[in-house]
């Protein structure tokens, strides 16, 4: 911690603590999860930046969606995202969550993940290198500093839009709405 950070810590402790304690939830949606073990172990030690994997959505505030999202996984992703506590950040990893990638004409995967849950940032590539996760984390720091990583606020404000899109793919949802809808 260098000296000019101390004033930042005094001014906005919540923002700084959110930056340097990103707990990522272990959730494997697709092939991209293979890049995460090197990031958290000895080769690219992400714990230097406070990024560690946790086992439950309640303790996590970073959600890495790694790889293609099938319709069945989308149900689990939405439930996990809604169980996480605010403030929470979601990152799409790989080209498949961005626009379908190589599964763009598949009958069983969704193409644009940000129609269903809000995404704060994307890592493009198939596959992205493990360093890309660390670069994404530093970009997320910048976004948090500028109050631009506000996906969870967007989700609260436009909940009806997201819920409608979710119901379009999954049919009737078997859990109550997270925020009250008219």
């Amino acid at each position, binding site marked *: 911690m260098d000296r000019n950070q101390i004033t930042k810590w005094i001014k906005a402790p919540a923002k700084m603590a959110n930056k340097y304690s990103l707990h990522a939830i272990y959730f494997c949606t697709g092939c991209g999860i293979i890049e995460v073990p090197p990031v958290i*172990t000895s080769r690219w*030690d992400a*714990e*230097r930046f406070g990024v560690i994997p946790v086992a439950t959505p309640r303790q996590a505030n970073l959600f890495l969606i790694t790889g293609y999202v099938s319709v069945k996984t989308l149900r689990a992703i939405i439930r996990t995202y809604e169980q996480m*506590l605010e403030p929470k950040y979601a990152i799409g990893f790989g080209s498949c969550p961005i626009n379908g990638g190589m599964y763009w004409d598949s009958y069983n995967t969704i193409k644009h993940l940000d129609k269903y849950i809000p995404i704060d940032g994307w890592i493009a590539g198939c596959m992205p290198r493990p360093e890309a996760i660390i670069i994404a984390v530093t970009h997320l720091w910048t976004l948090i500093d500028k109050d631009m990583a506000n996906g969870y606020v967007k989700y609260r404000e436009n909940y009806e839009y997201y819920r409608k899109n979710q119901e379009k793919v999954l049919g009737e949802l078997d859990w109550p709405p997270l925020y009250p809808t008219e």
Partner: protein
Amino acid sequence: MVTKVMQIILSPILALIVGVFFLGLARKIMARIHWRYGPPLVQPVIDMIRLFYQKSVSHGRMFDLGIILSLAGSIVVILFLPFGRICPLSNSGGLLVILYIMLLAPLGMALSAGQGANPNISIGISRKLILSLGYEVPLLLVLLAVMTRYKTISIVQVVNAQQNTGWSVFSFPLFLSGLSYFLILPAILGIRPFDVSSAPQEISSGPMVEYGGKYLALATIEHAFALFISIALFVNLFLGGGANPITFFIKMLVVFVLGICIHAVFPRFRIEQAIKYLWKWPTLLAFLGLIMTLVIRS
């Protein structure tokens, strides 16, 4: 009178600082053993600030009260434990009181977590209770041996006697008991190879699965207190306490670093393997220590 009140306020704060420092140090040492650089030493403090600022979800009245009960139990135990020469309640209580109140902390956590109604929680709690059944037997035998050897139940008098006669871990019958306590120390701390109750890979960190936000921060503080209590008890009973808080802290540090080295390299026991181990070697050693103490005393 004023010093007494000051000590009562100061000693839990001191215990909290030491415990949180140990949590940070544990992550750093683990990282270095894995050939990583590791997080900064203040990482647990950063995590706790983040958790206190997060929104938190409660699961009922008992979820709130149980964690407060366990924190209160830990703080009361700390008041009875001498930290160097600082011991606010030295005249009352003793080892028997500590034995009783030490149970409050895990009980409170079990009550609080049980309200979460997650299947992983009930598995975790049952594993934790079975594990405590495993280590309570040798722990009781060890404490009985110490009480018989020094003919007192006061922990302050045990420390004072060791200042005259040398550390009890180096005296003849009690080194068996000391060895036994060190063997069950990982089980009391809940670190590997005995972290069955909070295994993240098997049961999603067990009782902690529904904790988030402020509740997880309070649970971390409770964990720091639990670390402090079990190591301070070992240092007081077997390593001669401390003439001042600094020597006491150095002794605690040595014991803790040894424990973390075990934690970093060992895999996890299954619960029945843990019980088999705990009821075999530590219990045998503790029992031998108690018998020897009785024979020498008569």
